[in-house]
Structure formats: structure tokens, C-alpha cells
């Protein structure tokens, strides 16, 4: 089995997001960059399938040089090879352009299965996985909580929770699966794993090396454009419910919710 896992880096979720002057981007200095949390589930699932059915796991990322750190983390977890697509022309690309670059890098590898995280916790869009599948001409299954490989390794069943039910999809490989929390518990990279990772192959490719036209990437090629970025809308200041006992506060709260807020 040849399994690809796509990863990206995002600001750690504790990061304070500051809006850059001009209001069209966020300040990127002083950010702690980490592997997108949902991507970890993809790496872990790929490793489990490799352990069960044999094969190799190749991890692919697009971005600046620092993304190498997260690729090494995946290698330390047990992935076999890494590919970094890095090109100044790709800076500011939207999800479709990013997926295009990933698809081009991946196509030649003839993968059986491709994992990605269900969305990046930076942009919260969830496009790249589906777009990647579209460009590869294969099915995709997003926000998946369970993967069952057929014993012959030729097809897969994926569990997708929707509101009120779980859909179990089945399709022949290759497919793209985007990982949701609950799919598995990602392993920590062991110290021996970290040491081995330093020697595992990690290639770097530019857009041109992939045969891609840089003018189709970057800020200017975006299909979705940022008009402005603002702080979140302020909520009207609330009130602390007064009372001299928990019971009297509960009574007052019920009254406020019923009469003032009309919420109950």
C-alpha cells in the first residue's frame, strides 16, 4: 500500500491572533507553528494501515521552509518519506491552488490512499481534501471517524457522522479521506523515532519543478479574496445575576431568561 498524508502548519491554538496594519492579514511573527491538529489523525491512521497491510507512508506539505519541522515530526511518528513543496510564488495561495500543487506532486506517486486533516484550524474552510480528490479524479470522504480497509486492500469503508446519523460510504481505492477527531489517538514520536527521522529522505520541490505555472498561484490568483480582517464582533456586556443564595440567583435567572431574554 502506498499511502500519502497531506499536512500543513497552523498557529498553535493558544496563539493570540493580531491583525496586521492594513487589515488584510494577520501578524505572522512570534507565532508558534505546529502540525494542524486534524492532520495528526491522518498521519496516525496511515501508519496503522501500513502496520496492518504493509507498504509505505509519504507525507507531503506545502509552505515555507519551517514546514519541514512538521514533516520531520510525521517521519518521527513512523512515516517513511517527506516531500516539501516550497516556493515564494505559492505564498498567499488559496485552497484550490494549494490542492492543485499537492495533486500534481502526488499524482506521479500513484497512491492507493490519501489522508488529510478535515480542515485547517487557521482558515477553518475544509476545502483542500475535496479539491485534491477532484483534481486527482477520485472520490473523497470528509470528516471521517472510522476507516475500515477491505481485507484485499482494494476498497475502503468510511464512517461520516452527519446530523442525526452516520453514513457508511464504500468505494474502490484510491480515495482521499479527511480525518476527524475521534478517528484514532495519534502516537507521540519516540526518541528513537526522532533520531531515525533525521535520516529519512525529505525532498524539496518548487512549483516549476512540478511543471506548474507560478502565475496560477499566490495572492493574485486567489478565487476568494480578503477584503478585510477585523476582531470578532463584541457582545453586548452581560450582567451578573444577583442574589443572596444559589436558589435566589436561580430564581432571578429563570425570570430574566423568560421575561427579558425570552429564551425559555
Amino acid at each position: 500500500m502506498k499511502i500519502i498524508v497531506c499536512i500543513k502548519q497552523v498557529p498553535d491554538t493558544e496563539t493570540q491572533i493580531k491583525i496586521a496594519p492594513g487589515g488584510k492579514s494577520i501578524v505572522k511573527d512570534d507565532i508558534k507553528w505546529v502540525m494542524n491538529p486534524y492532520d495528526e489523525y491522518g498521519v496516525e491512521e496511515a501508519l496503522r494501515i501500513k502496520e496492518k497491510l504493509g507498504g509505505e507512508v509519504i507525507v507531503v506539505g506545502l509552505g515555507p521552509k519551517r514546514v519541514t519541522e512538521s514533516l520531520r515530526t510525521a517521519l518521527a511518528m513512523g512515516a517513511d518519506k517527506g516531500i516539501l513543496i516550497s516556493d515564494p510564488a505559492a505564498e498567499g495561495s488559496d485552497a484550490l491552488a494549494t490542492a492543485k500543487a499537492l495533486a500534481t506532486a502526488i499524482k506521479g506517486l500513484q497512491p492507493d490512499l490519501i489522508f488529510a486533516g478535515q480542515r485547517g484550524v487557521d482558515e477553518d474552510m475544509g476545502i483542500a481534501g475535496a479539491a485534491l480528490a477532484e483534481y486527482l479524479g477520485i472520490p473523497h470522504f470528509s470528516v471521517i471517524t472510522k476507516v475500515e480497509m477491505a481485507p484485499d486492500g482494494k476498497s475502503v469503508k468510511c464512517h461520516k457522522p452527519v446530523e442525526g446519523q452516520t453514513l457508511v460510504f464504500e468505494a474502490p481505492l484510491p480515495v482521499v479521506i479527511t480525518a476527524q477527531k475521534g478517528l484514532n489517538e495519534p502516537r507521540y514520536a519516540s526518541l528513537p523515532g526522532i533520531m531515525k527521522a533525521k535520516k529519512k529522505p525529505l525532498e524539496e520541490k518548487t512549483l516549476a519543478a512540478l511543471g506548474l505555472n507560478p502565475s496560477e498561484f499566490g495572492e493574485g490568483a486567489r478565487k476568494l479574496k480578503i477584503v478585510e480582517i477585523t476582531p470578532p464582533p463584541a457582545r453586548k456586556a452581560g450582567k451578573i445575576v444577583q442574589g443572596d443564595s444559589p436558589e435566589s440567583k436561580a430564581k432571578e435567572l429563570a425570570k430574566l431568561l423568560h421575561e427579558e431574554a425570552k429564551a425559555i
Partner: protein
Amino acid sequence: MPQGVMVIAEQRDGEIRKVSYEVVSEGKRLADKLGQKVIAVLLGQNIKAKAATLGHYGADKIVVADDAKLASYTPDAYASVIAQVVKANDPAILLLGASVQGKDLAARLSARLGVGMAQDCTAFSIDNGRLNAVRPIYAGKAYAKVTFSDNYPHIATARPNVMPTNPPDASKAAETADAGVALDDSALKTKVADVIRDAAGKVDLTEADKIVSGGRGMKGPEGFKVLEDLAAVMGASVGASRSAVDAGWRSHTDQVGQTGKVVSPNLYVACGISGAIQHLAGMSTSKVVVAINKDPEAPIFQKADYGVVDDLFKVVPALTEEVKKMA
């Protein structure tokens, strides 16, 4: 010249979902600004009769794709049908609800049609004849106003329970037509092997009108009993913060927050939840927020409309009694 607003409605087990009426209503508001029309599209099996209600909320025309292969959602089949309907009608704007299905379909369509897509939007506007959308980013730590390139249609998904539905007008009869599209078997590789239904009577958090949620302050799984009692008398669903889920007290399907569900109920009661930014990301568009926590410094109080600084194990049961009296 692309014209009009197309809305992809969503049905589950033959019933049109509430978010679809919200999106048709919003689509109508946008179409009115443009002086254009709304086409609603419904996919499923045996759904023709239900489709008419889309007209009551503002659709001028309804296109129905009724086929056994569309009974249950698959990305392949639905994207294939919609792409053909889009091609036949050339809309300027394509809207879906930001339900699980809507977000998935919108992502695939964005790539298939080569157009921009704004996900989980909380507001729309028309500027210079073009759709603009506002959406949270970085788990709601910032909001982005976005617009689109000259590639049409402009796709966007609307966060459920944020945009108002129009008062339905049953006298409005929209023109209904068959989608008349081909479902090419060779292109449809995905099958639905099974549909596993959730426990009966359990309302998905993203559809709940009221949510009572517990965090680390619940101290253990047994602590959630008082929340379940309150939820029962209020007609609410029970949610949980990441702390409670990671501790194994509640299922991940109950988690509200950045790595859980995004909910937008009319009432959100946060009990024993400190209000970390990652939790707020999941409930910040709730209409009324109540916080019950004995720590007066808990950040949740900054975001609550009503705060009770006290022991939740005393306040919540007392609140349950008060609500019972109202019934």
C-alpha cells in the same frame, strides 16, 4: 452573464432541513438586491411533494432531482447532479447551508467549477453587484470579510441558525421543474453501505434550539446528571467542553468548540466551563449565553449575557425547579 441566486436545499429522510429555509430566505434577500431570481435545488428520492415549501420562503423556481441513487447523500452523485444544474442555469451565486453535507458539497463543487467558496458565513452583502461574505477564522479569534474573483458562481455556505427565515407564504407557488440530469454510473464510485442512526430522540447539537453544556467543573461523568435534568425540563440538548470529553466523561460527539462542533442555539448555558478561546469558537454565535461558574475570574463571563457566580451543583437543580414551575 451569470444571473440569479441558486440555493441547494438539503433533505434528510425526505424532510427539508431548517437550514435550507434560512438559506432560501437569505438568497431571496440577496436576489432582491440584485433584482434577480432565486432557484432552489432539491436532491433526494420521493421528495417532489415537499419541494414546494421552498417557494413559500422565497424561491422563484424549484428544480428537483428525484432518483433512487440520490436517496442518501454521496459527494460523487450530488456534486455531479449539481454541477449539471449549475451549468444549465448559470447562476451568479450558489448558496448552501453550512451543515456537514453542505460544507462537504460546497468544497467539492468549488474545485469542480473552479470558483471561490466562502465556508460557514455569518453574514452576506452585495457590494458593487458582487457577493461579499463575513466568516470567522482562527476559531473566531478574527473575522474575515471576503469577496470573489470573476469566476462564477460565487459559492458560500451559511452557518445554521444565524440568518433569519422569511415568514412563509403558502400562497407563493414557485415554478417546479425536473433537473433532467444524467447520473453516469461509471462516474459514481461511491456507495452508501449503511446508515447508522443516532439514539432515538437525541437532537444533534448543531440543530438544538437550547444547549446546556458542562466542562471541567462538572468534576466527573456523574456531575452531568444535573445538566441532563435541566436539559430535560428545558427541551435542551447536553453538550460538553473539550476538558470533559478528553477526561472521558462525555462522548466526542457532544463536544462544543474548536475541535468539536460549532453550535448556534438560541440559548447556551455553560456550566463549570472556564471559557477558553477554543470553547468560545464553538458557541460564540449563540443568541443568549448563560454562564454558571464559581470562579468570578472565569473568561466565560466576558462572553455571557447572564452570569451566575456560584456553585453550579446548587444553582442548576434550583434552576430546574424554577423552569418546572413555568411549565
